[in-house]
Structure formats: C-alpha cells, structure tokens
C-alpha cells in the first residue's frame, strides 16, 4: 500500500492504461459487429446470425481469421515503411484515447482521477496534434506497397485528410471561444447545468461542420472514395493481408470512436447528464436501463434461441442483470452516472455514423475536394468570425 501511495501516479496510470486498452479493443471488435448488424437491418437482411447467439461471436471468428491468414508482403516494397505504416496508424489512433475523460475528474483513487488517463490543460490541442500525424499511416501505406491502386488511394486519401483537417480544427475554435479553455474538463464544466447549456445550441453551425469534417477525416462513407471497393480495389490497404490489414481496420474504427468522443465532449456535454442535477431519480437510470436490457435478452433467450445459442444468450442475460444490480448499489450509483451518459452519447454518435454509411452514396473525388475547400472551409471560418463577434458584442 505504501509503495502504491508513493508511486501513485505511475501505478494508477498503468492500471488505467491496461483497463482502457482492454475495454477499447473489445469495443472495437464489437463495433464491427454493431456496424454489420445495423447496415444489414437497413438493407432488410439479418447480418451475422449464426456465429454465436445473434452473431455475437462473429468478431472473435474474424479476429482469429485475421491472425491465421498468410502474411503476404509485396516483393518490391520498401520493407521498413511497409511494416511501419499500420503500426503507426493503430498506435496513433489508440493514443488519442488516453486524453479523453469518461467521467468527472473528482472521482479519485490514491489522488489520481479514475476516469481519464492523461488530464492535460491543453488536451484538445494535443488531440489535434496526434490526429494530424495520422495522415502518415495512410500516405506511407500507399507509397510502400509499390503498386498503382494503393499509391493512388494513399495519395487521394491523405490529400483528403489534410484538407478536411483544416475545417475540423476551425469548426472547434468556436467552442474554445465559448469555453475559454483547451482542457476537456474545462470545456465540459462550461456546459454544466442541463441540456440547454450544451455547446451544440449556440454552435450548431460549428457542430455540423465538425461532423462533416470528422466523417471525411476518418475516411468513412460518403467520403470513402479512396478506399471504396468498387473504385480502387481497396485503396491504400490493398496489398496488406492478415494482421497488418486488421491493424488498419482497427485504426479506422478507433478513429471513429475518438471523433465521436470528441463530438460528445465538445458539443454535447461529455459525461454530464441532460437533466439538471436536482432530479435525483436519474441516478437509477444506469441500473434500470441495464436491467431492462437484461429483461429483453431474457425474453429472447426463452422465446427465440435454441441449442447452444440459447446458452450463450443466457450468459448475456445474466451479465446484463449483474451489471444492472451493480449499478443499483447506492455506493456505485453516483460513480456510474458519468460513464453511463458518456457511453450513451458516444453510442448514439456511432449509430449515426453507421446509419450514414448504410444510407448515403459516396462523393466523387473532385466533388469531395471542392466541397472541402470551397464550402466547408468558408463556412467554418464564417462560424468562427460570427462567434467571435457575438462574444465581443455580448461582453460589452
């Protein structure tokens, strides 16, 4: 205990990093399941259904497949850069998650905040620094594969990422002007109160610019021409197989999660609840929600599932009930509030991402670039100037 309290920063940080990595990797795996299910339902089909109850073991099967596939390296490629690119992409995508607060900073153990790994006073600036380095993963992958389609896809994709990065950063500056701080906890606390104080209402233009630029930045539909299957084979990751391809895949989903977390923090109040703090009944929400989910799973287990799927889904039901029961312990109730609201909002954003993927056609490359430079950038700038003017006039 003495050792822990002396080196509190180091020990607690290591534990937080380990827990965060584990949770994030599991979330990434099940994000692929979620996407396939939602896109399938939009297209009037079932999606993964057979591998485990409701396809819940599909990510495990996919992961094993990626691990055991043969790793083919194109012969004329630049070995060092070819191997470096996916590692760079994945490590940068995962590093940004260290800055994100999942809950209030005053819940602490051994003097260290529990819900954020690295609480920095310029967290937002660091996050943009790390995402701006993400261009290299794509560009170097395209170059080092030494083949037509990856080179074109890599160049187009990195040009797109660099262009939309400008609008992304500008659309966020309005929020910075309002909140007056670069740190995430400062921005979240500025939105305290209830849903009417969130930044999305005064900054609706900024929010729309941010969401558009974020979808373009993460190379998702409708901005995914550089990696679309019908256009450029697979774009910059054509020549990658097995684990390196899995790393690019995970990096894309991790970027999606990061951008959704950022949207939640900047515009939707982060871990704050939409109801005012005086409504104490909201403390029961996490527990009640999980138990409701458990009841639905119970119904499904009893009525629909057969055989081994029934067993698996019974386990899922038990987990939901256990989670709900834990969240209803009075000691745990206030602690569970922050992460519950944060995860709900991020989940809604990810659902929105996947919904757009299933619905919209994709932009042509020249349409994409002209949209980014000729429409999105002026609108972000106008939003910034307008916000600054309003703040100046109101302060007088």
């Amino acid at each position: 205990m003495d050792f822990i309290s002396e080196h509190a920063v180091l020990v607690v940080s290591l534990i937080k990093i380990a827990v965060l990595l584990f949770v994030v990797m599991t979330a990434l795996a099940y994000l692929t399941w979620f996407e396939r299910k939602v896109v399938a339902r939009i297209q009037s089909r079932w999606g993964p259904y057979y591998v485990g109850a409701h396809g819940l073991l599909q990510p495990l099967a996919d992961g094993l497949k990626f691990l055991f596939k043969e790793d083919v390296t194109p012969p004329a490629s630049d070995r060092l850069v070819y191997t470096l690119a996916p590692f760079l992409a994945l490590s940068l995508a995962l590093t940004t998650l260290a800055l994100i607060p999942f809950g209030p900073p005053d819940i602490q153990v051994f003097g260290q905040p529990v819900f954020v790994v690295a609480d920095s006073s310029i967290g937002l600036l660091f996050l943009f620094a790390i995402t701006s380095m993400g261009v290299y993963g794509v560009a170097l992958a395209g170059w080092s594969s030494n083949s037509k389609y990856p080179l074109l896809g890599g160049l187009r994709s990195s040009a797109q990422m660099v262009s939309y990065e400008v609008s992304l950063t500008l659309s966020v500056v309005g929020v910075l002007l309002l909140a007056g701080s670069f740190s995430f906890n400062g921005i979240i606390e500025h939105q305290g109160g209830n849903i009417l104080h969130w930044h999305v209402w005064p900054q609706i233009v900024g929010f729309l610019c941010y969401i558009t630029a974020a979808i373009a930045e993460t190379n998702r539909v409708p901005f995914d021409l550089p990696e679309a299957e019908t256009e450029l084979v697979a774009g910059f990751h054509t020549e990658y197989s097995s684990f390196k391809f899995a790393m690019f895949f995970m990096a894309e989903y991790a970027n999606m999660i990061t951008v959704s977390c950022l949207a939640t923090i900047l515009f939707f109040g982060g871990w704050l609840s939409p109801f005012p703090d005086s409504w104490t009944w909201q403390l029961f929400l996490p527990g009640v929600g999980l138990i409701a989910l458990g009841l639905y799973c119970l119904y499904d287990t009893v009525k629909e599932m057969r055989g081994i799927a029934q067993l698996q889904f019974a386990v899922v039901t038990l987990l939901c009930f256990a989670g709900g029961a834990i969240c209803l312990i009075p000691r745990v109730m206030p602690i569970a509030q922050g992460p519950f609201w944060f995860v709900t909002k991020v989940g809604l954003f990810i659902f929105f991402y996947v919904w757009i993927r299933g619905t919209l056609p994709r932009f042509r490359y020249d349409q994409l670039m002209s949209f980014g430079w000729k429409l999105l950038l002026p609108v972000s700038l106008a939003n910034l100037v307008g916000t600054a003017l309003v703040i100046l006039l109101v302060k007088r």
Partner: protein
Amino acid sequence: MSLPIILFFVCAALAVAGAIALIVAREPIHSALSLILVMVTLAVLYLLLGAEFIAAVQVIVYAGAVMVLFVFVIMLLNASAEVRTNWSKMAMYVGVPLGIFLLLEIAYWVWRSSVGPNVANGATAATGAFSTRALSMELFKHYLFPFEVTSILILIAILGALVLAKRSE
C-alpha cells in the same frame, strides 16, 4: 538521475539518431521519416522546457503539415535512392574532418558558456508564465503587426505555389 534528465537524454539520443539517419539514408523517404522523428522528439523537449503550446504547434504544423508536404513531393516526383559515388579527395580529407570539427567546436563553446547554471523545470512552468493565455496576450498585443505581416506572407506563399504548379503543365 531524475526523470527529467532521463527523458532529456532519451529524447536527445533519438533526435541525434534521427539527424544522422537523415544524412546517411539512401532513400529520400527514409530521410523524411527520420526528420519527422527529430521533430517529434523536439516537441517532447519543448514540453520538458514548459512550452506546451509551441510543442503542440510543432507537431501540428511542422511534423503534421510541412513534412506531409515533403512526403507528397517525394511520392509525386518518385524520388529514388541517391547514387553512391566516390567522394572527391577534397570532400574526404578536408570536408569530413572540418565538419566533425565544426560540430565539436559548437558543442565545446556552448558547454563553456555562461548559461550553464540555469536550470529548467518543465512540469511547474506549464501553468505559469508560458501558458497559452500569456503567449496569446503577448502575441496579439506587442507582436500584432508581425502576426498580420506573416499572414500576408503565407498568402504570398500560397499564390506562389499555385502559380508555379500551374506553369508546369
């Protein structure tokens, strides 16, 4: 052997290794990657010195935009490995020793300079005089004119690059 000194030496070793790799590498893309490594380690050193905003600007602008430009140009021009030719006698017997002597001389005179006794403690300085707020106050009050002139300079650079790129078609 406190943590800041260890961190400094690790970053310094990485920076010097990157700089040597930049000179020694045969492919330009490897030189570009080494330069990116140097810039990122320098950003960590700026953090150690307490200049947090400059560290972020270094990564966002220098390592994240200028070097992307370099990498694009290398890819566009398909720059290949440099041909290794034998150095001229002048370069081998006069150039290399003089170069090493330059390095050692700079290091020696800096070491003997009077700045030595000052120490830097990055961790506590971040919230003090070097915060982003103080920097922006200084920039927009006393250095407003150079700031505006720099924005015109960037505009000129954009126009110049556009004109040059057009003429090559």
